[in-house]
């Protein structure tokens, strides 16, 4: 789209959307949301960028290479956290017993490793969202 108003508004809005997405992701253990919802929101922000600025610029921002790393990295983070559980406390995906800080219930830094897991999931979901959207857009244009 070439409209200057849309472009400007989008440029202002997108960071806030992403911030909100990160907030939902990290607060998954205290409020509704979590990795999937937060990741979807971050994905949505990139979709907005694609719609406004065009697929080519979007691909420069979020290239295929980045998506590969993001998708693999997300799950690898998850697995790594699980493996920490094995090393420290003898069971996969152990939470408190593996040494993750318990914190005070209700605040962001509580619940052990769950926020970290959410980050991993969020990255992956966002990346999937964006890749799917890019694939659909490309097929339509081709």
């Amino acid at each position: 789209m070439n409209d200057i108003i849309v472009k400007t508004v989008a440029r202002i809005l997108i960071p806030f959307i992403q911030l909100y997405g990160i907030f939902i992701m990290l607060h998954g253990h205290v409020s509704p949301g979590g990795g999937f919802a937060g990741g979807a929101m971050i994905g949505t922000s990139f979709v907005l960028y694609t719609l406004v600025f065009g697929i080519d610029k979007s691909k420069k921002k979020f290239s295929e290479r980045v998506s590969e790393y993001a998708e693999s990295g997300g799950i690898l983070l998850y697995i790594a956290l699980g493996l920490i559980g094995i090393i420290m406390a003898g069971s996969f995906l152990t939470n408190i017993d593996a040494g993750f800080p318990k914190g005070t219930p209700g605040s962001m830094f509580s619940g052990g490793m769950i926020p970290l897991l959410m980050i991993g999931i969020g990255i992956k979901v966002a990346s999937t969202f964006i890749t799917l959207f890019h694939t659909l857009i490309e097929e339509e244009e081709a």
Partner: protein
Amino acid sequence: MIAQLPIVSMVMLLGMALIIPLFKRRNFSVTTSLGFVVLLAVWVLTLLVLWHVRVEGPMTYRFGNYEAFLGIELYIDLFAVLFVFFILSLIMVIYVYSTGDATEGVAEKEYGRYYILLFILLFAMLGIIYTNDLFNTYVFMEILSITTVSIISIKRKKENYTASFRYVMLNEIGSLSYLFGVALLYMVTGYTNIGLVAESIGQHWTAYPANATTAIGFMVVGVGIKSAVFPFHVWLPDAHSTAPSSSSAILSAIVVKVYILIMIKVLFRVFGLSVLDVIPVSTLLIAVAATGMIMGSMFAMAQTDIKRMLGYSSVAQVGYIVMGIGLISVLGLQAALFHVVSHALMKAALFLSVGAIIYKKKIRKVSEFNGMGFEMPVAMVVFTIAALGMIGVPMTTGFISKLNLGLAALDGGQAVLVFVLIVSGFLNALYYLPIIINAFLKDNPSQIRVMRVEKIPKTMLGPLVVLGALIVYFGLFPGVLIRVLEAVAASLL
């Protein structure tokens, strides 16, 4: 430390799947070799676990140290480890085969994706077999469905799409039936962990008979759809025939069996003999199996495409296995498990040899097999060995399975089943023998008369020879395997 090995092996497989895209820029052989190394490592780890379980007994593993009713539990006993070991061995053979450029119509850039799907598939299979939680089984079942659909439709042709679409639809119906059954059980018992559910069912089911009956019905039908038991086999011929050869081998030889293992787990671990004696699941299974054995072969006889024929043959063989399960006795279960192993070997050998023939000669019709034995002797010899095994000729594992199934049927008092078994074997002979005869004894169009080992990559020849040798070896010396399986069957009942 040993207790960590199952989950570590699963994680390694998943990790390998995730790392593959990162190697996209390099030579593809790096990926395949690394994949083989990972598979080998997982195989060795499983061997260690097998040895440990054999000596020490079953072990339980809890995720996150949570209690059984709160968290996910893995129950690793001889049954689970043995079959995981066997599946990994067979996958290694098929993996080596598939690196030989025999993915048949799959585009170059899709190869990486194929292996990602393969590893995730393996991860899911290990998960299904190890897990001790009904809902977790559902999750892994779904992952398995999606990945198998993808390895069918990775060949981008129209027939693949229709076949995989039908496959996905029917599999979803199956999964949802299964989930419905799980929900019913949860409703009655309040748990999804298999051990706790079994305890609870044993005590309370007489208070809620309708629930338990409906649950069994839906679960058996659901898993039956996914393992191609007779009336629900309709997705199988299309799916297995249009898929690339190594996918067909994996599907027919392994994936179908994993669902049967789920059926065994559900019937014997969750419900147990006390329930099964009263609810007539046995009659149902035997009736369905007997029909399947005959009808599968009847349909197979009329096929012109060889992979479709092999697909229908799978339907018939799954009938044998379900018949063994339906007899609900140690002998029957042992015979069924032996046939799981033996059919996996034979079907993999058949699909891989057919794949080699399609790769080299691009021939798929049964009528064009004249003289194939001279142009591709190794593939046809392995095909012959496996086909003779399906018929039930002595010196192959198929014969031992028939013996065991027959004895189990007699032991269960169902002499008619022996007759059905024999008729089915004869029908198998009706469509396999002409192919073998045409291949070796008729003249082919190019009139080649000297047998020379065919020029296909060694990574394709090796697995064929290994599979052929294994079929004959277990046909001659089945003793060890039978004893182990008998122990497994006894532990399940």
